């Protein structure tokens, strides 16, 4: 059997394995490894849970009595900025300490070349900055983005959450929405809210609940977990994860994006390979800046990227190509990663 046939046969067996519900004993070594790989956790869950825990840690900090209005602070120890330096595991996979050494060596080489005056290349200057000083929230055009913000919850009820409307959005969440109240004597009484820009309006009614539920009879917090309403996980309302509403994660409502400021921290680039210089621009000794507008999602990935200020000579494409690969530490709001719109300026310079 040649390698191609072997790959085909293995994949047929893996297909069967992926459809099976339980992890059974598998005779083949490779299939056994495949079965074990299926049991590894996903990076999205790891980061989402970490954000949840940091929110909980924030509340546990000495002296915390609920955030005062306008509190811009995010929890200390919110997701680590550059986990690869700590050599601990990051995501489902471990950081490779060799990358630190390689990075150090390559930077040292570039510095030496610049110092010697023989390097012909370009410099990339990244400026992530708020687009507006006073507006902190921009709803993107409907349907233009993959839903990101969102939330959900529930208390593992066997009954779907009751139908109703979510509470108002607020910059902070003191009380999550619930229908079946488990704690009759809370220490802190506050109206329920979901986390998101207060400007964001959803249908309101006197009946709290899940907008899309078919249960209009039985009071229930839903089949989800961690305290809110719906089938998701978190202190929000719906099928997402986190303190917002609907699909997606991290607060807000599917598809909405924050801007830096008013308690929303700027994303930080943690993996930012330089763009290449286009042949055309290099031959013409053409220099300048490209400004890209993009959204950093709650997982630190780039989406909705476009050229906000063009340079031409193939450099726009080179900037887009490189920045699409960038990874960010996401912007944070109240300890939760949120989708944030930023501008990235890429400076092309020849030396």
């Amino acid at each position, binding site marked *: 059997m040649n390698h191609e046939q072997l790959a085909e046969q293995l994949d047929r067996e893996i297909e069967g394995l992926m459809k099976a519900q*339980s992890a059974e004993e598998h005779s083949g070594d490779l299939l056994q490894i495949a079965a074990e*790989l299926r049991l590894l*956790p996903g990076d999205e*869950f790891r980061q989402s849970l*970490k954000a949840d825990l940091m929110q*909980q840690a924030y509340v546990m900090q000495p002296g915390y009595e609920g955030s005062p209005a306008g509190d811009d602070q995010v*929890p*200390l*120890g919110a997701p680590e900025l550059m986990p690869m330096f700590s050599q601990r*595991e990051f995501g489902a996979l471990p950081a490779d300490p060799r990358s630190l050494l390689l990075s150090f060596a390559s930077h040292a080489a570039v510095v030496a070349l610049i110092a010697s005056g023989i390097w012909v290349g370009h410099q990339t200057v990244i400026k992530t900055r708020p687009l507006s000083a006073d507006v902190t929230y921009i709803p993107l055009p409907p349907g233009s983005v993959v839903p990101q913000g969102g939330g959900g919850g529930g208390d593992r009820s066997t009954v779907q959450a009751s139908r109703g409307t979510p509470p108002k959005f607020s910059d902070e969440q003191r009380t999550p929405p619930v229908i079946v109240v488990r704690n009759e004597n809370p220490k802190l009484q506050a109206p329920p809210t979901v986390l998101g820009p207060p400007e964001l309006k959803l249908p309101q009614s006197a009946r709290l609940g899940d907008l899309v539920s078919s249960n209009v009879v039985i009071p229930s917090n839903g089949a989800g977990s961690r305290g809110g309403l719906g089938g998701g996980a978190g202190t929000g309302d719906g099928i997402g994860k986190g303190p917002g509403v609907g699909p997606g994660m991290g607060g807000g409502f599917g598809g909405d994006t924050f801007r830096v400021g008013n308690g929303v921290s700027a994303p930080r680039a943690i993996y930012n390979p330089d763009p290449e210089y286009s042949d055309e621009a290099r031959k013409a000794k053409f220099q300048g800046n490209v400004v890209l507008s993009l959204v950093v999602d709650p997982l630190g990935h780039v989406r909705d990227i476009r050229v906000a200020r063009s340079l031409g000579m193939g450099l726009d494409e080179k900037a887009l190509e490189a920045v699409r690969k960038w990874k960010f530490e996401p912007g944070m709001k109240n300890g939760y990663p949120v989708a944030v719109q930023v501008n990235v300026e890429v400076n092309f310079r020849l030396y």
Partner: protein
Amino acid sequence: MRTLERDSDDWPLIEAAQNEPARFAELYEQNFVRIYAFFARRVATREEAQDLTAEVFHQALASIKSFKWQGAPFIAWLYGIAANVLSKHWHRQGKYSTEEITDLSDAGGEIERSVMLAQLVGSLLPDQKHVIVRRFVDQKSIREIALELGRSEGAIKQLQLRALENLRQRLGDTI
């Protein structure tokens, strides 16, 4: 293999988390894969494993201040919480398992093998790693991965095979 006997140096991290709860993030990073692996082998779905893992860490963080170090590693305490959470989960489902949740020391080494496997996946070539993570962790089909990477389904199957062969070899070298 690192098992329950490891981590006598956990105490500084625990003490830091007791003084400043946000420092719990370090204990979380250190033990996340182990707790997830504990549940992944005992429940039917990823969602259950995720919910129960979340519950363990939320409980652990909530009670970190009352944790008293008596020489046992921190992971043993987490496994204790995990066993309790699992027992309640089964009870809620009306499932009274005959399985005693006593194998907290991971005598079979399965949990440590998961940790090792996660590390070995990280050492694969980037395209092999991508295929493995998308295929098994994110549970995507060969077709979806092929579309993502702009390659043929046959090429993705070949990458999958090579990656699994590499993992088999490295597991053999490590154990």
